């Protein structure tokens, strides 16, 4: 990709990276409600499309939010996922699994006043039930809004690097 846009300056870049570190820390500590209230904007579209494996010559368009997607959530739907985890009745998370995130390759661009497009790579390591280990890498395309209460994400597109997901579920937040 040839990028003619200029990335944000050092101070903003640092603020965004720090924001991601704080976000990850909340998720690692199972502070799902705090995570949701702190970083999610009310106009969020949280999206993980399904990319088929197609021939290079195939002219069919890329998936849209109208197509099959592993996540395709608005604010209320994402909130329901958080609520479910906090019911105390999700047996698969009791005892809780461990999850660790590594966010790298952060590139941020200003797209409007106080709005930023941010690309990053995410590596997720899950350990469940003694010895089960699952590792995922994802490309993440965020749109962040800078507000009085910090950055809020209003668009998050997750490209998981697997046609066949190597995990029993993807019920975790990235």
């Amino acid at each position, binding site marked *: 990709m040839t990028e003619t846009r200029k990335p944000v300056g050092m101070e903003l870049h640092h603020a965004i990276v720090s924001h991601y570190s704080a976000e990850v820390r909340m998720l690692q500590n199972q502070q799902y409600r705090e995570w949701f209230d702190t970083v999610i904007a009310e106009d969020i579209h949280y999206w993980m499309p399904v990319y088929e494996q197609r021939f290079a010559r195939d002219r069919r368009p890329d998936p849209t939010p109208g197509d099959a997607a592993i996540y*395709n959530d608005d604010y209320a739907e994402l909130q329901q996922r958080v609520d479910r985890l906090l019911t105390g*009745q999700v047996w698969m998370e009791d005892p809780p699994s461990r999850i660790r995130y590594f966010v790298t390759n952060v590139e941020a661009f200003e797209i409007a006043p106080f709005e930023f497009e941010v690309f990053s790579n995410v590596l997720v390591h899950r350990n469940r039930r003694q010895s089960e280990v699952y590792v995922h890498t994802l490309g993440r395309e965020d749109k962040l809004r800078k507000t009085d209460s910090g950055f809020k994400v209003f668009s998050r597109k997750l490209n998981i690097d697997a046609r066949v997901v190597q995990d029993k579920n993807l019920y975790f937040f990235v």
Partner: protein
Amino acid sequence: MNGSAALVDNANASQSRRVFWDQDVYQLELERIFSRCWLMLGHDSLVPKPGDFITTYMAEDRVILSRQPDGSLKAFINSCTHRGNQICHADSGSAKAFVCNYHGWVFGQDGSLVDVPMEERCYHSDLDKSKLGLAPIRVETYKGFIFGCHDPEAPSLEDYLGDFCWYLDTIWDGPDGGLELLGPPLKSTLACNWKVPTENFVGDGYHVGWTHAAALQMIGGELAGLSGNRADMPFDDLGLQFTMRHGHGFGLIDNAATAIHVKRDGYVKYLEETRGGIREKFGPERERLYVGHWNTSIFPNCSFLYGTNTFKIWHPRGPHEIEVWTYTMVPKNADTETKRSIQREAIRSFGTAGTLESDDGENMSSATYNNNGIITRKGRMNSSMGKDREGPHPVYPGIVGVSFIGETSYRGFYRFWQEMLDAPDWAAIRANDDTWDAMWTNRNFWPERLSAKQAEPQD
């Protein structure tokens, strides 16, 4: 293999734990079930035009399904007849021909070998291309759903579905064109035996309230009362369970078709507008089915939830792993917005990150892997719920159980599973056609129950 009677005990409604674990049981399943039964390949909607193809699996065999210029379908093994390479690596597309990456052999849309690079110079007219087409697979469709079968002696697809057609017609034929599948499929691996999700879908209404307690509480709606098994419900009057000659079966929850969907206005409206057509076409008994929720498996490894409309193929990967493929069933003639909304809700609940699916995967792995312990594996599993509260019904074909919470269709699934493993060929299976349901001895259960109901004073 001897001793499969010990694997399934129909009289006492139990199975050996080896059915989920043993490699030799799995090998026998590949030979006697997956090589002889009709397996789900897809739906007309996935390959609408000539030249369209999808790649899929029949158990662990890679398969190409291809729409022919005359509109018919062909399926063949996705492996070059020269040195065995996989020919097509794309999930789907449109192709005039399939070219092997290794030496460039070219196979037509019908699987025939049409071109070999430098044929004259290398083979000197010695190569009989007509004998080197891709291995063909029997293909038949029922109401647009496409199945493949390797066994020339197997019955027709319609006979294989058998009594189940009477039920399937309600939704697959529907009021005006039935259902189609929306892809592309979500795909994921799950460390479990293929029968664990199949038996769960065929007949497990029991786990819904407990396994999915959190999700049901969050979703609310008709099934919220099941959450945590808190509600005191008269289960006997809330649905039915069914099992068929060839192991297909389902559980019905009355008036709950769309219960798992949160945003459902379009689909509810569609069902309300079309149920009258169903009553007219199929009668009130099947209108009841049309507005109910079905948890279903088609023997051996295809499952769906009608109403929720998730549609699964559990491709086995050895005895302890499967690849889960998830499509969505939608009414063919619903508007685009309704179809998209059904797909969103179906995936939201039963996709790879589904609010209910993720509960199930955990159980399915656990039910499989616990049997790696040698002492554990010597134990048995119990499927006796509702054992004498089932039998032939004056209206509904097959064997009918009294409640949607019961294990009638578990018993029917494993009955046929054992029959397939024991039978040397389809002739031996056909020989049981008149006696297959002899294990259900309570023949008067339904006549007596229904006449007792009629005798009750009406409110």
